[in-house]
């Protein structure tokens, strides 16, 4: 069953009116752009591409697009720092694109909000693992790349059941202690999200 609270990502479409295109790509998110722009596109003359590989290998293909600017970021954190620098000097004639896993997309949406960019005006495409970013409702710590439920919180060690509810504000699903009344019983973990 679809999760109502989970964002729906419309997919990449080039906004040809934008004077500047800023693209944040994570892992397989690079394919969203490469598939769209196979054969080149005039937007590349005004495009700034930031890419973090996280296990995938699109560096050469992205470099070959010949965008006005291209940068292979060592980490997602470094990518976000560079993006902040770019947005701090950008005008309203700029269009922001993001592709990758849900947690990455959400982190860019949150960063963009600080610059007054509305969520709806960001062009997004989901690519990659269905793994979830989960906030422990008890210690409030975030757990990235969760694929099983229940799982053990890396911050407080509680065994958390992953609820099917996504918070856009927190950019996370919620994890709730599965055995609070029966701490000696630990239900087996099942792989839920690949």
């Amino acid at each position, binding site marked *: 069953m679809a999760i109502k609270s989970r964002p729906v990502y419309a997919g990449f479409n080039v*906004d040809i009116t934008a*004077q*500047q295109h800023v693209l944040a790509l994570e892992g397989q998110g690079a394919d969203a752009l490469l598939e769209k722009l196979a054969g080149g596109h005039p937007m590349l003359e005004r495009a700034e591409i930031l890419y973090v590989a996280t296990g995938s290998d699109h560096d050469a293909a992205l470099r070959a697009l010949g965008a006005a600017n291209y940068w292979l970021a060592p980490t997602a954190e470094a990518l976000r720092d560079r993006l902040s620098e770019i947005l701090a000097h950008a005008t*309203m*004639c700029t269009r922001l694109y993001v592709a990758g896993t849900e947690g990455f997309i959400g982190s860019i949406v949150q960063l963009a909000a600080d610059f*007054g*960019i*509305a969520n709806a005006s960001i062009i997004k495409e989901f690519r990659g693992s269905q793994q979830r970013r989960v906030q422990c409702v008890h210690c409030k710590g975030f757990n990235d790349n969760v694929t099983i439920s229940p799982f053990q919180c890396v911050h407080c060690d509680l065994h958390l059941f992953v609820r099917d509810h996504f918070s856009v504000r927190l950019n996370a699903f919620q994890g709730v202690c599965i055995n609070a009344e029966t701490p000696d019983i630990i239900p087996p973990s099942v792989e839920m999200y690949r």
Partner: protein
Amino acid sequence: MIHPEIIVRVTDIAVVAESIKQFTFERVDGGSMPVFAPGAHIVVSMDDQGKLRRNPYSLMSSPSDSTSYQISVLRVVESRGGSAFMHEHVDVGDTMTISHPIDLFPLHATAKRHVLIAGGIGITPFLPMMEVLNESGQVFELHYSMRSRRRGAFLSELERRYGSRVSAEVDDEGGRLDTRKLLIDQPLGTHIYVCAPLPMIDLVFGVARELGWAEENLHREVFLAPPAGTPFYTNLAKSGTTVYVAEHQSLLESIEAAGIDVPYLCRGGACGQCETTVIDFDGQLMHHDIFLTDDENVSGTKIMPCVSRFVGASLTVEL
């Protein structure tokens, strides 16, 4: 009652510019006015010799003043009767009926910068907006286009109060808003708000879209006057009755005259509140609103009775 109303007394009328009068309303029962957010409007009901007229006007008074409301009315040359009635038949001491405030033109709290663009009488919603933006220390600028300084209501007061944040473009001094220049370098997080005649809104939005602005950052307020046209009949399926829409009457007005309550907010073709399902028609729907999409217009299944009309043999709507 779907439209709660307030009985008010006109306590002041002032000429604030050529063809523009400012009206002050206070409650007859001496109570406080409802709190409103900048950008809100009220609908003023007028009893014009037994004929009910209802026109929307932006609130221009201070949102922190709960003792009265103020509006300003431009005497329109081609008036359907509303602005002429306000200018010629309303006197200090008169009792009138107004709606509660309705806000279809709010400020956006996530904006980093607000660019306000007024055309003529479209200045009114920006008065409370600027007051609130100024008090909360937000960044804003006003671009005020007018035919002549004599027509530029409140300009000198705004210049005195807000200094260089106000710029005036005066037609008969050769001034003209350079929209492209204004919009091309605005930093991320800027929102534009336009209250002006429709062609000016279209121009500003058109330039913004050409430059790649996000739709989420474009805001406008416009109240279209219902156009006159050939009289026609409309069957109201649920009510089981037929209304006659005269040349200078809107479909909404004719339905109200038959004693049937229709939801509405702007009465000017912009908000979508009075959207009505068309069950059947033989003829042509004359869409004058800016709410329905082109696809919806072509589908012939919807009409906005506040401004749109019909030409042909028969029209049946779901009311």
